[in-house]
């Protein structure tokens, strides 16, 4: 290794190409990533500040500067200020964002991830806790369990964090009474048990006075357990899932030179030269020819390269491998599927809505996912299920949902390879929420549409005809427009076919004689069939007064294989006449319009409609809800069935 004279001395000369000398340090990383969670003002920053101070991890001058500042304000020394360096934080006394603070004891190095307890900053807490090995859950002895205490517990369980120690803080403010401590321990143990969490210890502390952190307290002689630091030093720095099968998340394929190099992260297992690998989705197979390194090692690296490592490799065959695929052993592949159930937490202000199409990222894979249904939302505080079906998951809510991605993705379930069993959903550029996959939903893949590439497969639904019949003024147009909007927001291509519009265009040469009415409906039917065949959910809003015409329409749709539903929009004539939105009844009564349905032309009510809506008795909202369900069951029959089957999961 050469360097310009006097400018780049390498302190220890290394022979060119020599492998790096083994570091004279512990071979296994023992670095513990620790998150501190709990309700706002229960003392997180003070605890961290005190830990830093007591382990002599504070740079010179910092403590003195804060001491001077506190004195100037006439305050006691505030350990939290050691952390809260930003101006606004000191003003509000609230930690604003995730902070990572390294410190070390004689036993091991730590990184504390300070997750804020302020309600609006849950996303920061998740950002912090998702990468932690262990958690300290702080509870104020005076206040006991609060909303965020419970919410944070719930999220820790969802994030898969299992090493948890509970510190009951501010014992000095309750005169170090054991009964206060015991009551909190009992209540919290019960709550955590429901989440499947068993804390390593409950420890009474006073962060402010440094009691129970590094040393015990004479005032709490009744407590005989370990100190907080004892427990933290004994936690395991989570070893990566090295025992599992190989999972190589492909990040990129490089062709900087003649080599075609597959670069990615080994999420679990290990890889060596000569290993047979299959890339899913897709299923292409080859063997590892080389593991690329820089500087080039001599002899070339043969592996194994283990989990948690970045790797760059070449294959024996020139396969088209791309970002998002997962390399796996032939006999132990991840699932490759489109539909699954998951528990999700939502951290974006715009709710996650049933029916919406949203980008999903899992490992390095990205796919559009349809929210097929939200089974239930869970109140993270009470652990109660929301009642009935719900259309959305709001910010800070947790829910069980069913998702279907547009193309198959590869994933693992049941904690086999945790990194490949969880995903995020993107709201714009930001992560809107995260989820853990619970189960794969077996789906018949070829039931939608026809032909090798069907429109239904592209759209995610099939075309159909929702035929709304009823008197003028019964509410057809209003409901049709509302239904169209509902379907469009759910990602369903839909269009209203309105009688009035037809009359001004396609049927403008027709009058209102029985023959002309029939011809008008024949044209409407054919148009609806064309649209539905192209994949559109057609919402026909037509008076269509004659049973025969409606029957012919249904018959034609059946011939063409188009699902068809007759919806009777039923309001009594008197009510329609009272509404008279277009003043047509008034004109008809005045003899200015002839052959007006209901006045001087008959309306033949359906005998067995697929759905009847009494718009004079029920609210517009109720009607739309029923209509939407009817439309969805035609457009996506299989998902409706799945949702029904999934209700008791």
């Amino acid at each position, binding site marked *: 290794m050469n360097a310009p004279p006097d400018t780049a001395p390498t302190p220890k000369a290394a022979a060119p190409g020599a492998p790096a000398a083994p*570091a004279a340090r512990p*071979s296994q990383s023992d670095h513990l990533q620790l998150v501190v969670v709990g309700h706002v003002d229960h003392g997180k920053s003070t605890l961290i500040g005190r830990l830093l101070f007591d382990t002599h991890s504070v740079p010179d001058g910092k403590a003195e500067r804060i001491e001077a500042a506190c004195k100037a304000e006439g305050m006691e020394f505030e350990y939290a200020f050691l952390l809260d360096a930003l101006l606004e934080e000191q003003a509000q006394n609230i930690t604003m*964002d995730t902070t990572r603070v390294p410190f070390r004891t004689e036993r091991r190095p730590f990184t504390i991830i300070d997750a804020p307890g302020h309600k609006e900053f849950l996303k920061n807490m998740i*950002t912090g806790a998702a990468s932690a090995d262990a958690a300290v859950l702080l509870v104020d002895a005076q206040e006991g369990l609060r909303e965020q205490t419970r919410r944070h517990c719930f999220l820790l369980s969802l994030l898969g964090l299992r090493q948890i120690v509970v510190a009951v803080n501010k014992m000095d403010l309750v005169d170090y009474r054991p009964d206060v401590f015991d009551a909190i321990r009992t209540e919290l143990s019960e709550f955590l048990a429901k989440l499947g969490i068993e804390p390593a210890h409950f420890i009474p502390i006073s962060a402010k006075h440094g009691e129970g952190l590094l040393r015990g307290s004479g005032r709490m002689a009744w407590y005989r357990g370990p100190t907080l630091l004892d427990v933290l030093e004994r936690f395991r720095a989570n070893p990566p899932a090295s025992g599992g099968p190989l999972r190589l998340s492909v990040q990129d394929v490089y062709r900087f030179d003649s080599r075609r190099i597959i670069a990615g992260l080994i999420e679990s297992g290990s890889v060596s030269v000569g290993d047979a690998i299959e890339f899913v989705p897709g299923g292409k197979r080859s063997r590892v020819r080389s593991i690329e390194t820089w500087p080039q090692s001599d002899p070339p690296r043969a592996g194994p390269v283990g989990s948690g490592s*970045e790797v760059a490799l070449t294959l024996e065959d020139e396969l088209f491998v791309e970002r998002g695929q997962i390399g796996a052993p032939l006999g132990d592949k991840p699932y490759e599927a489109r539909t699954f159930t998951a528990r999700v937490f939502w951290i974006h202000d715009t709710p996650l809505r049933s029916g919406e199409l949203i980008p999903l*990222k899992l490992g390095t894979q990205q796919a559009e996912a349809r929210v097929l249904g939200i089974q239930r939302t869970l109140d993270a505080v009470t652990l109660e299920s929301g009642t009935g079906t719900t259309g959305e998951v709001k910010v800070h809510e947790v829910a069980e949902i069913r998702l279907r991605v547009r193309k198959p993705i590869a994933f693992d379930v049941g904690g086999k390879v945790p990194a490949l069993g969880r995903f995020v959903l993107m709201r714009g*550029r930001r992560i809107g929420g995260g989820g853990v996959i619970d189960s794969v939903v077996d789906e018949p893949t070829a039931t939608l549409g026809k032909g090798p590439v069907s429109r239904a497969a592209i759209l995610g639904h099939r075309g159909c005809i929702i035929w709304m019949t009823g008197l003028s003024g019964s509410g057809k147009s209003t409901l049709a427009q509302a239904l169209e909007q509902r379907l469009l927001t759910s990602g369903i291509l839909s269009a209203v076919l309105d009688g009035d519009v037809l009359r001004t265009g396609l049927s403008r040469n027709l009058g209102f004689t029985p023959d002309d009415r029939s011809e008008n409906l024949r044209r409407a039917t054919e148009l609806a069939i064309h649209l539905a065949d192209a994949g559109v959910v057609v919402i026909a809003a037509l008076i269509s007064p004659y049973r025969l015409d409606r029957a012919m329409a249904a018959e034609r749709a059946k011939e063409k294989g188009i699902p068809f539903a007759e919806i009777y929009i039923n309001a009594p004539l008197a009510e329609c006449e009272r509404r008279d939105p277009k003043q047509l009844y008034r004109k008809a009564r005045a003899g200015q319009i002839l052959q007006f349905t209901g006045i001087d032309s008959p309306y033949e009510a359906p005998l067995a409609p697929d759905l009847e809506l009494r718009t004079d008795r029920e609210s517009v909202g109720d009607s739309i809800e029923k209509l939407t369900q009817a439309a969805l069951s035609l457009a996506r029959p299989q998902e409706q069935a799945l949702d029904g089957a999934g209700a008791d999961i």
Partner: protein
Amino acid sequence: MTHLDELESQSIYLMREAYHAFKKPAMLWSMGKDSNVLLWLAKKAFCGHIPLPVVHIDTTYEFPEMLEFRAWAQKHYGFELTVWTNFEARARGIGYETTDPVTVTHELKTVALQQCLAANGYDALITGIRRDEDSTRAKERYFSPRNAEFEWDYKDQPPEFWNHFTTESGPGEHVRVQPLLDWTEIDIWRYLDREKVPLPGMYFSRNGQRYRSLGCMPISKPVKSDARTIDAIIEELKVTKVSERAGRAQDHHERNAMQKLRAKGFM
């Protein structure tokens, strides 16, 4: 895996993600120890290549020794180097001789970087900042968006977890990608030692003092030290309680100087 292996892998993961996600990413390089680790990691991430431009913001107050190192390293590693100076500010008389260090840092570093981004259309910048350097950097994200005015909205940062990040930027905006966030100063030195990464000589003791952090000549002060080797530096760091950037005058010119600088776009 050792802790250094874990850090190395994570940094390489982040670099590869950035290289894939952005249309025109660039990498910042100050010739300092952290940015030399960055170069080294890039060579590893991209199998001996540095497939993105390397940017040096030259304040015109660079140590001559650092400029020599710049020329040497570019040849040694082989990468496309973009050097940018805010000549407009210098022409206006902005300089340490006449102006306070916070203003100079803003003009000659942040504004210069702004000009450089605008001229070259970079949509992501890979930087070598670390969380343990400064309390505002401690709050950073791996992928940290900056708006078109370069502002950092530290009160509403995007969530990132499970290796998923904000990997898009709008017109005029860019994302700072910060692969060394989790490294500490000692990690850097151990890695420099383990990998034999070439470094400027100013980090090592001469005449009883050495530079612990290097910036502009007039405002970078050496610390007292006899550490002539990396081992000696690591031993020194284990016991010191002086903060790393104590010798960087712009950080301490006024209360919250670093926060103000960073909110406006400083690294």
